[in-house]
């Protein structure tokens, strides 16, 4: 079945260090979305990428969609304690219209 894996599963960084999470799908995705879930909170939409090779930036966050549209990455420059949370990628499930969420990367930022 379709799988969307993220690595790493957990990441601890010192405040100010950079962070990257990678998302890999077993199938080609028409688009990919990224969500952030703070501890005790709910997933919140960050961004959607649609085009092959697309790169989008939101302040310190850089999102990239792979050329083959099977992988994506989220890079955070100079992490802050407010970046703490679990980051999920999500793509359309093959043959369906619901989102298939990745396994998530839990980020801890040490002050």
């Amino acid at each position, binding site marked *: 079945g379709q799988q969307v894996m993220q690595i790493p599963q957990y990441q601890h960084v010192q405040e100010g260090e950079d962070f990257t999470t990678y998302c890999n799908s077993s199938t080609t995705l028409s688009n990919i979305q990224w969500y952030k879930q703070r501890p005790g*909170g709910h*997933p919140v*939409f960050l961004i959607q990428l649609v085009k092959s090779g697309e790169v989008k930036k939101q302040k310190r966050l850089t999102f990239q969609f792979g050329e083959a549209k099977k992988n994506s990455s989220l890079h955070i420059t100079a992490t802050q304690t407010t970046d703490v949370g679990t980051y999920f990628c999500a*793509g*359309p499930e093959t043959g369906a*219209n619901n*989102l*298939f969420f990745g*396994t*998530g990367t839990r980020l801890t930022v040490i002050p």
Partner: protein
Amino acid sequence: DTAVSQTPKYLVTQMGNDKSIKCEQNLGHDTMYWYKQDSKKFLKIMFSYNNKELIINETVPNRFSPKSPDKAHLNLHINSLELGDSAVYFCASSPRLDWDLTDTQYFGPGTRLTVL
């Protein structure tokens, strides 16, 4: 003015009981969903409703039944609760169901269900 709301926020109950979780969205969206998030934070879709029609029913036990009285509400009823049902359940909604472009999903705050 909460966009997607769920009640209750916490639910603690005994095995074998029947319980319901309510969800309401005031965004005017056409599609609503239920997700289950386990202790490892994996998010799995359970159901989605589009214009009051169940369109996706994942392989969840038939003890779980979604009920949608109108477009703005999608409640989740669970019969004969089991220990393994303990999880956080999220309701979500999206503007429409688009075959070409999956819509952004707006999540509710979640309901933490604990089965003893």
